């Protein structure tokens, strides 16, 4: 049964990478609940399946077995178009390598989820502008991703993840590619925004410092999620 109060739930999630004779069973029955405003860190060695778990919880791939619930609803019971809307409205992603589209300015990148939702470009840019101010890179709005620093790119990626005010943000090693100074800025910003906006964050990380600053820590080991 899924927890009705949870904004995101996973139940008995299994996933195998099909490589013929070398099939890799990375998740062997993972379950978790994420509540509004909760900050949860997931740690585990490389290849343990942290990114895969985030992709499955973020509806980017379908679990081989088990269920995912967003706001108590099973998104795999609706068609892909509806599922895309759920991804757009309820989920935000922050990736290790910012994943900003190089052909668009920082401002346009942040406005993109709003435009995907059908919002007019003008309104989307206004909404994105507010987020850019909040993450402190409004002065870099007109620059292209290649023209700003790694820390600024990741702040833009964070703004993009938050611009639709999703109930859950899934961050996959968000500071894994940054220097210490940028890491500190992005971590502080992320945790501060999460608390202020009462949004649930599930953060896959190798950083013990970041994990300790989150409210809850989970370890992914040999395909199972457990408290440390």
């Amino acid at each position, binding site marked *: 049964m899924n927890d009705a109060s949870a904004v995101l739930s996973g139940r008995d999630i299994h996933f195998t990478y099909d490589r013929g004779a070398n099939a890799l069973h990375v998740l062997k029955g993972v379950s978790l609940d994420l509540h509004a405003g909760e900050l949860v860190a997931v740690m585990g060695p490389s290849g343990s399946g942290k990114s895969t778990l985030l992709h499955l919880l973020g509806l980017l791939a379908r679990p081989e077995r088990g269920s995912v619930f967003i706001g108590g609803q099973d998104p795999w019971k609706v068609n892909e*178009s509806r599922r895309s809307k*759920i991804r757009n409205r309820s989920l935000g992603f922050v990736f290790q390598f910012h*994943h900003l*589209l190089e*052909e668009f300015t920082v401002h346009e990148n942040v406005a993109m989820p709003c435009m995907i939702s059908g919002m007019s470009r003008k309104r989307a840019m206004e909404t994105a502008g507010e987020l850019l101010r909040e993450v402190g890179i409004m002065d870099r709005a007109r620059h292209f991703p*290649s023209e700003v620093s790694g820390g600024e790119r990741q702040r833009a990626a964070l703004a993009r993840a938050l611009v639709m005010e999703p109930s859950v943000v899934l961050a996959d090693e968000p500071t894994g590619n940054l220097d210490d100074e940028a890491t500190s800025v992005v971590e502080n910003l992320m945790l501060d925004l999460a608390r202020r906006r009462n949004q649930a964050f599930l953060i896959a990380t190798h950083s013990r410092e970041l994990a300790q600053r989150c409210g809850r820590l989970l370890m992914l080991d040999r395909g199972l999620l457990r408290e440390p």
Partner: protein
Amino acid sequence: MNLWLVGALSGRQVVSRYQSGFVRFVGILSIAGIAIGVAALIVLRSFMDGFMGAIRTSLDTVNPPVYVFSPGGGRLGPADLGLVEELASTLSETTGAVAILERPAVASGAAGTVAGVMVRGRSDKGDGAVLGIRLAEALGVSGGDTIRVASTAGATVSGMGRILVDTIMPLAVVSVRDFGIDEYNRSLVSVSIGTARTLFREEQTISAIGVNLREGSDPVPVSAALDSLLRRSYVDEGWPVYISAIPFMAFHSNLFQALGLETLAMTIVLALITVVALLNLSSALFMIALEHRWDTGVLRAMGASPATVFVTSITRGLSMGVAGVLSGVALALLAVWGVNRFFPIRLDASVYWVENLSGRFSVETAVAVSMATIIVCLIVSVAPALSSLSDSPAKALRYE
């Protein structure tokens, strides 16, 4: 679906400086291929249309658009002219009829130069003779000179073997004209029908009746209508002989059919070359889709639906096609104008009838070629668009 986003995604990714140089090169190459194919098709049609148009215009200038004649070779008379005038006046597109008497003759000019000529007498011409430009050159005469024309109609051979012509008539050359068609330029002597009748001693005879039409009228339906009226007047009333009306171009239908076939064959060959360029577009779109596979994963993660990704990909193909088509049309316009203006093509008039080949850019042809190309662009964009949806967003995001 935000149209700005779809347009920006498809447009910017085509010319993105962030994708590999090879993919960009292949993309530009496929746009260039489409442009060259479209330009080649339009240029071909422009010059073939220009060639056929020049012949038609020249024939139209010298000949009435509708010809009434006796298919059996019988001579026409004033009664026939009166009937044709009466019947033609019932058709709104006609402006009148002219009597024509046309016979071969021999003309001599300055210093004893002699040439075989075709004397054409028309009831709407004034006194004096108008000569084709090459004929005037051959006879060594110009406007204001006099030529002597001998009718061969009543020629006999004497017992001594000399040719005795019936009539020799001096004619004042009022002007020398380029009739456009080499055959006319080398042989035509245009005079009034009175002069022709005097020369050939045929007081009442008419060899054909020409019917003139209003500007822009199509001679084919008018000649069909007039022919039908003539049949009713002659055959249906029991007369053994009837006269027939046909568009003048029908005398040259074989030529135009042959040229039409040649144009069709060349169009097919060039269209196939354009199709190859469009297949190249498909390859380029596959490469761009592969190059932006990761971007597609990001877009899907942000909530872009498969329909949005598909439409974006199709728009990308369409925008490349439109870029190619617009460049091709511009290239064709430039090529036709440039050839006409700076590199005029001279033809051997004795072979091709006309001396200059000039292109006539046709908007209808350009629109037809462009629309057909864009439709094929849409079709070849479908497979790359589907390929961009073949991976789950997670798989696309792992692709780096």
